[in-house]
């Protein structure tokens, strides 16, 4: 409890800083160094939900947590056409209770989420190398600052439900990271075309036996006319495990008219071994009135290879966000999950969830 109070105090003080200080920036002989930060604190309540125990599905305990979810520092160095970017991330510096499966991520240590350098030949051709999140769909390239741009609970595409990572599921529905990318934009009189082509060497994990995972090739094409965007993403990965080759395909749209915004996305994943057969999609409508934004959304996830999601999970959402000032945002949401399937215990066919977050950026 002392840690929670201490963190609340630090967060409150931190919120006072950005209004006067802004980002930290330093210019030395044509080289610019700047530091930006992101911090959020979240409260989550979730009803008992289905959990896989071997070949059975059992109800899991309800969850109620107060959690520092993400804390990111982006250190950016710019000199002429060259950019270097390091994204440091710390998660769960405090948490009022651990998840029911006993796991937490990190407990406050800092990790390098991204580290890359980029050379800009022109608006049309830019080359990035290092380690960075792949541009895939609408949110993936900014998934570390999740609640800033999106509802606190991301669409299912980006944030697989709990229990999804056990055998029969895959760790991430959208790709994690890549190492080399060519990207840019062709700006016509009315149509703007953003593209990205990337590849990644994957990563090694030690689960008893080292194995390479997610060696990948992918691309994205976004077509924009004014504030209206239609995008397509493709990602192919080769894993040295049961999934072998898998192909992710997504289509996205982001449409704006006055205070209204509509986002929608659909993703399908197929694997050569048929171990993965996923269809997921979402749509969200939001309306902004001054510093307040309300939204309503719908999610669907079906995975033929996963006991819980074999016949699909639907999620209805509604929420509100309030901008205290340009640097401090408050959000609150309600989510209603419906699990379909004869093996789902009746007690967990419908799951209610409430989540609230306080977010600060500088």
């Amino acid at each position, binding site marked *: 409890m002392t840690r929670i109070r201490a963190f609340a105090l630090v967060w409150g003080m931190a919120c*006072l800083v*950005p209004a*006067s200080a*802004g*980002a930290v*920036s330093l*210019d030395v002989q*044509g080289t*610019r160094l*700047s530091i*930006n930060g*992101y911090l959020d604190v979240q409260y989550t309540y979730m009803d008992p939900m289905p959990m896989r125990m071997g070949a059975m599905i059992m109800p899991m305990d309800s969850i109620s947590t107060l959690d520092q979810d993400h804390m*990111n520092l*982006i250190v*950016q160095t*710019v000199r*002429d*056409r060259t*950019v270097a*970017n390091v994204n440091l991330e710390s998660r769960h510096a405090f948490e009022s209770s651990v998840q029911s499966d006993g796991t937490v991520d990190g407990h406050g240590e800092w990790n390098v989420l991204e580290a*890359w350098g*980029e050379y*800009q030949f*022109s*608006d049309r051709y830019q080359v*990035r190398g290092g380690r*960075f*999140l792949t*541009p895939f769909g609408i949110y993936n*390239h*900014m998934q*570390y*600052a999740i609640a*800033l*741009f999106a509802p606190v609970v991301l669409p299912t595409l980006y944030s697989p439900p709990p229990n999804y990572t056990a055998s029969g599921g895959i760790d991430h529905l959208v790709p994690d990271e890549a190492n080399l990318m060519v990207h840019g*934009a062709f*700006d016509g009189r009315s149509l*703007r075309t953003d593209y990205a082509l990337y590849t990644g060497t994957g990563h090694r994990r030690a689960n008893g036996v080292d194995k390479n995972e997610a060696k990948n090739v992918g691309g994205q094409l976004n077509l924009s006319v004014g504030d209206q965007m239609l995008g397509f993403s493709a990602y192919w990965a080769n894993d040295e495990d049961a999934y072998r080759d898998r192909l992710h395909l997504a289509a996205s749209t982001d449409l704006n008219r006055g205070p209204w915004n509509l986002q929608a996305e659909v993703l399908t994943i197929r694997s050569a071994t048929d171990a993965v057969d996923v269809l997921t999609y979402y749509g969200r409508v939001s309306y902004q009135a001054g510093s307040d934004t309300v939204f309503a959304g719908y999610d669907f996830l079906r995975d033929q290879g996963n006991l819980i999601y074999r016949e699909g999970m639907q999620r209805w959402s509604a929420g509100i966000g309030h901008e205290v*000032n*340009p*640097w401090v945002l408050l959000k609150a949401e309600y989510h209603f999950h419906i699990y379909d399937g004869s093996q789902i215990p009746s007690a967990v066919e419908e799951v209610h969830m409430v989540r609230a977050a306080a977010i600060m*950026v*500088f």
Partner: protein
Amino acid sequence: MSAAKTYPHRGLGAWCTALAAVAVLVSLAGTAWAGDVVVIGNPALPVNSLSAAELKRIYVGDKGFVGEVKVEPLDYLNEEGAASVFLEGVVGMNPARFHAWWVKEVFHGGGIPPRRMDGVPAVVQAVAAQPGAIGYVPAESLAGVTTVKRLYTVSAP
């Protein structure tokens, strides 16, 4: 002999007063600018004018090159009055919202915000010295200045 009294909340009150004073001073610092604002560029730029739409794309990071020249937009550290005229007139955001928007854009995947300078003379000097530099200044500050190009004029509202 009486025990010394303590006033645990007195320190807090003083802090609140000090914060309020700082807030008033900060709000007074950003005085409004009544005159026109001129967008200036380095003479090495391959154009003699830019449209409002092009300037907006440059200042929000959608356009990084003019011809083969890498452009570097300049902005202000403090709330110069000209910032309100230019940012609201061309970019469509007030200065506070523009700077906060850029913070979010940095988290959006590596955008590069405009370099923020300390005052009008610093902007004029940087634009004159650096190929590709673009800035905006009050029109009256350019009297006698021949080292920069005048690319666009934003009329005061």
